[in-house]
């Protein structure tokens, strides 16, 4: 296994589980399961044991490995020089398990669906661009930007609403954007994090070839997960593009007044998506947008920015739901934390986070006190 020469170096000191100021345990799997085995240190020690033949690939071991939300809290807080590789190590272990064909059924089904249908929803490709019907968003021809949506924004009802909001805003701001519609493919970020390296490479190369054929130079993504893989993984496969998350495009447009906004009298807290924040260091753009809206009071949760608590949807868990369920599921903890700020709205910048937190608000029966809205939806409500 790649990184096999590193796994023994974990001291299991446990800094990886915390925020930087120790406010709370911040590893979503440890926070939920509470056995040390579900912490990053636990995974390191168990991977080593597994490689040494001291434990076997079991249902439990699979749950431990595949419940990791790849949120990178451990990467942020581990004190050792190999901290950067922690998530990569867990993904590499998953790759080994995928290669062995012994993986949790939801993971297997997700990967199969991507392989067969190009999306996890078993929907035809012809449905991909349907979200854009009734909007001013056009199909990509030779526009300046490709607006890449991803599977959740294309097929999930919650995601589609966000895609429409972002698409309309970008067009309204006068940006030259186009979408791939039924030609769009899965970006592969979750395929990669779930350990199907071969399928990821196939998807990435296919996307890169398509983008090149179409002359794409600049990409705006709806989803931080796609943003992450286009930015970090595609270049290694010769896929060099200028990649932006939509908040990075919107922030300067709103700040410069190109999208004039009316005021909103709301108290809002912002939830940092892991693949925008910790993975890519973008904490400011969404906040700049929110702060530019007159009348909004932006309050921070105890855990924000580098210390943000994951919604529990990362690393494929949005689709496999291995980490979900129960009072201590990360999304439920997160909405309770948001409630503590006194905010009435949780702003998000990721369709996966939106859906996860939306569901959690319902389960916690907070519908009348807390609303989950994408930053783009909030801006849309403020359009003059």
């Amino acid at each position, binding site marked *: 296994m790649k990184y096999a020469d590193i796994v*023994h*170096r*974990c*001291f*299991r*000191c*446990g*800094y990886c*589980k*915390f*925020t930087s*100021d*120790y*406010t*709370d345990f911040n590893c979503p799997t440890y926070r939920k*399961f*509470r*056995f*040390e*085995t579900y912490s990053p240190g*636990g995974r390191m*020690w*168990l991977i080593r*044991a597994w490689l040494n033949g*001291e*434990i*076997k690939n*079991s249902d*439990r*071991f699979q749950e*431990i490995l595949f419940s990791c939300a790849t949120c990178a809290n451990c990467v942020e807080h581990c*004190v*050792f*020089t*190999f901290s950067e590789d922690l998530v990569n190590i867990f993904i590499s272990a998953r790759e080994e398990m995928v290669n062995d064909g012994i993986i949790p059924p939801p993971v297997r089904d997700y990967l199969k669906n991507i392989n067969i249908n190009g999306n996890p929803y078993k929907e035809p490709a012809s449905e991909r661009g349907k979200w854009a019907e009734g909007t001013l968003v056009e199909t990509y021809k030779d526009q300046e930007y490709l607006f890449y949506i991803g599977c959740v924004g294309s097929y999930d009802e919650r995601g589609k609403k966000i895609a429409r909001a972002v698409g309309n805003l970008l067009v309204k701001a006068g940006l030259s954007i186009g979408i791939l519609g039924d030609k769009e493919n899965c970006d592969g970020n979750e395929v990669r994090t779930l350990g199907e390296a071969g399928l990821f490479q196939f998807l990435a190369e296919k996307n890169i070839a398509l983008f090149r054929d179409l002359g794409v130079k600049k990409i705006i993504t709806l989803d931080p997960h796609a943003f992450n893989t286009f930015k970090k993984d595609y270049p290694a496969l010769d896929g060099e593009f200028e990649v932006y998350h939509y908040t990075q495009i919107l922030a300067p447009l709103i700040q410069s007044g190109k999208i004039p906004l009316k005021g909103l009298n709301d108290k809002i807290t912002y939830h940092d998506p892991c693949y925008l924040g910790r993975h890519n260091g973008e904490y400011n753009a969404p906040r700049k947008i929110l702060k530019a809206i007159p009348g909004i009071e932006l309050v921070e949760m105890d855990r924000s920015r580098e210390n943000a608590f994951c919604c529990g949807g990362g690393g494929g868990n949005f689709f496999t739901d291995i980490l979900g369920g*129960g009072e201590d599921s990360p999304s439920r903890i997160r909405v309770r934390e948001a409630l503590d700020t006194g905010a009435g709205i949780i702003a998000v910048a990721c369709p996966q986070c939106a859906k996860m937190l939306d569901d959690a608000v319902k389960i916690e029966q907070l519908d009348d006190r807390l609303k989950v809205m994408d930053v783009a939806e909030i801006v849309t409500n403020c359009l003059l």
Partner: protein
Amino acid sequence: MDDIAHSLAMIVGEAYFSNQPEEAYFYARDPGLMPPHKPDYVVVPKSVEEIQEIARLASREKIPLVPMGAGLALTGLTIPLKGGIVMDMKRMNRILKVNEKARHVIVEGGTSQGLLKAYLEKNYPRLRHSMPDSPATATIAANVMIHGQGRLTQQYGFNSDMISGLEVVLASGEVCKIGSCSMSPDWFSKGAPMPDLTGLFLGWFGATGIITKVAVKLYPKKKMRDVEIFITDREDLVPDMVYELTHTEMVEDINIFAQPKPMIFKDNHHIAIFITGDTDEELEFKRKMTWYSLDRFIKSKDGGFMGVPPVMKPTLLEMPQRSVSRFADVKKGGGFEYSGPIIMVEKYPECAHKIVELAEKYDLGYSGMARIIGRSHAMMYGFAFTFNRADPDMMDRTRKALHEVSEFALEAGGVFWKATVDEQKMAMEKMDPNTLGIMKMIKENLDPNGIMNPGNWEVI
């Protein structure tokens, strides 16, 4: 699932019970060098009532019961030497009450040092507790159980001296309150003026009971904090230097470290002197007092204050010091262990010689670190060796070096801190027979079935 497994799962809930190989593997070992031994079951309880039920079950079935905080003692104290149940306490991590004016806090038995620090900083910025340099996930209860030390140890003694009340679940399942809380709603004293019963549990590593709540004293937190480093190559003078420093009563904490790398550190002893103040004037006054106290050593050219490089200062002032954990990867091997006997400060020169001797003999990376306890009343001298977890030979050499440390410490009049099972045996062999007799009486009465962390403090 066997009957015991079923019962445990019923008590804590299936989600917090495991008899799976993964937990058995992990909870069989700690980050140190002690041989692993698998538990049969691991549970993560949420309440005192659950712990009571588990204790009753363990007593009835005569199954070993081993409480565990973060498992960071490194000396194998939470390894279930005879199998049974490991009880991970960290789900019980509520901060129950802070009495600001009486300066104490009551926490549940699995509350981490980090959580309390963050809580106080946010809610009671003028209060602090004695933070050890173990990782932030270390629990307060386990730390006092092992007589840990922290940032306030030079001023107020062992962290266990700062206890102001305990709640303990006995092997029988009974809950026992220790201190003023046994007859008052307030947890302000661990014993005095009544008989102090905390000794029935502290230092026993769970062999007499499980701490489910602990109250610890809080202390004034000054607005400013700084560190000075006095360097000397005269280890024989270190005890005198410490004596002078402690005489000032101006110092928060005194640590002395000596290590071979970087090269400019070699053969020197660095006395890190921490000071605090609410104003610049207070801080500067204390700084000057520490300078004056060591003036004669500067004049005799036996030492001097070094300018603490800006890059080094945050590392030293951090609480806990993350750099302590980083020592584990010096050899890119993720391991370190130390033996930290509590010993007279006058033994510093011998300790300093011994660690170098052992590091050379066994070809090991080392770091010597002393923390002063009280006003020079004693010190913990940490003989720390780093090892590569993937190098069995290096691990073996480290074990041998640590064994020699144990022999040396005993010979030098020291007492083992968080003693390994072997050290416990060595201690009991050397101990006054009447003292041992009292320990035996305590153990037999509090744990008649021998189920509480068996293998530890087993008086034959």
